[in-house]
């Protein structure tokens, strides 16, 4: 999937993002509280809507290239139901709930052809009226077995939000001990691992277990960043519940014992997971990273950023950061300066603020913008 642009609005809170065009790498910069994270969450919510979830008062328009390269536009709107109590913007509608917000309208265009036309009364799919279907679920979800829609449904599966992989104390289960041979045999190529729904840690374990050269490529890049490390391995631990849990360990020069996953520093662990993600995610993945610098040490921040910039894979990155090193390293042509006036959020190209017209470092120019320091722009 490649996301070309996004517009969203949460009518229940009056939050609105004006249409933002994205690039293969987009770095969202701006003052705290302007809505950078909300942009990532809106994309994630669209993934969830495509998978059948409902969001009260959510209105959207997204343009994208599907996994098969089709030029698509999908827009729609949920009704806004007034709820009691405080709600955060874009929070999924609470369950159980007997009064679901219905979808007012939904349209899907593929290569400019109007494939789905939905209003409060009916759904027209490829020129034909469908049987009555639940009004609170998106048609991407309801019709995902149709060949025309399957590509769209699967495209949204390529959006990943990676803020959970920095925790070295988490040990996701790979499989039950009895199934390990079966599961290992299921993956017979790096492509089958990349395209699987396994977590990045499980994919990394599979590559280690199968001695795929890509494991050494990841290891070598990691050692370039952390020269004190000489080896990485992924062991399978059997838990008391008879399940197999992959656990990463590193061997440092001059240190006798292996350093096990829960003892690895969070900066090292997160760097390793970032690199593994770059090598092991499926083609056409859209990677969303909030506050990229979190837990990355000063010694690895530039190189991990560089590994993203140098990635030759067919991936899209939408990242937020406050860190001067990261912002400077990622050229200003990739920046979107996010500002908010009241409830209206805009993300504007840095060039439009005159960034690049000075000999000063791009971050210095950015820091001097009121749009950046105050978070508002006309």
């Amino acid at each position: 999937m490649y996301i070309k642009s996004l517009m969203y609005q949460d009518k229940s809170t009056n939050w609105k993002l004006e249409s933002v065009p994205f690039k293969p790498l987009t770095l969202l910069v701006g003052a705290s509280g302007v809505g950078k994270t909300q942009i990532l969450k809106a994309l994630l919510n669209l993934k969830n809507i495509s998978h059948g979830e409902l969001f009260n008062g959510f209105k959207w328009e997204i343009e994208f290239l599907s996994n098969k390269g089709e030029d698509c536009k999908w827009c729609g709107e949920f009704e806004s139901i007034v709820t009691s109590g405080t709600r955060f913007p874009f929070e999924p509608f609470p369950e159980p709930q007997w009064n679901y917000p219905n979808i007012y309208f939904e349209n899907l265009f593929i290569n400019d052809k109007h494939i789905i036309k939905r209003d409060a009364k009916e759904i027209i799919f490829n020129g034909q009226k469908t049987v009555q279907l639940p009004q609170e679920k998106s048609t991407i979800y309801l019709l995902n077995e149709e060949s025309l829609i399957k590509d769209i449904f699967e495209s949204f599966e390529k959006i990943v939000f990676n803020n959970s992989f920095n925790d070295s104390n988490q040990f996701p289960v790979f499989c039950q001990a009895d199934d390990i041979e079966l599961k290992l045999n299921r993956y017979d190529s790096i492509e089958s691992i990349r395209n699987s729904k396994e977590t990045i840690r499980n994919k990394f374990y599979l590559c280690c277990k199968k001695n795929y050269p890509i494991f050494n490529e990841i290891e070598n890049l990691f050692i370039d960043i952390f020269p004190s490390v000489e080896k990485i391995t992924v062991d399978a631990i059997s838990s008391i519940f008879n399940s197999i849990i992959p656990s990463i360990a590193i061997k440092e020069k001059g240190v006798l014992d292996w350093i096990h996953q829960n003892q690895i520093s969070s900066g090292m662990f997160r760097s390793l997971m970032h690199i593994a993600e770059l090598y092991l995610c499926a083609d056409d993945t859209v990677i969303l990273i909030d506050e990229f610098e979190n837990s990355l040490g000063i010694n690895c921040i530039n190189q991990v950023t560089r590994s993203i910039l140098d990635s030759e894979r067919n991936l899209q990155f939408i990242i937020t950061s406050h860190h001067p090193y990261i912002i400077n390293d990622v050229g200003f042509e990739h920046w979107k300066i996010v500002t908010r006036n009241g409830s209206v959020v805009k993300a504007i190209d840095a060039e439009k603020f005159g960034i690049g017209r000075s000999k000063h470092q791009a971050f210095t120019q950015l820091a001097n913008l009121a749009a950046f320091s105050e978070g508002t722009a006309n």
Partner: protein
Amino acid sequence: MNLYFLVEGKTEIEVYPKWLNHLLPDLSRVKFAKYATNNNYYLISGMGYPRLLDVTLIDSFAEINELGNYNYLILVIDADDFNEQEKIDEV
């Protein structure tokens, strides 16, 4: 006469334009350094980030030398733990 101000923090960005308005009312501010023609000033800040002297000041030199339209560079920094002469020596 054109002046190029490099200041250290965020407060100066607020204070200096107002102060200059009283002190040198004929001087008007330009948004980008290259727009200075006659009786203009340009003001840029390190915004409190480190590396003011070893990066931002050097970038200011490069900009002024390239443009050739400034008569003075005015550097505004705190002496911090140094005395005035020690800070001048450091610069």
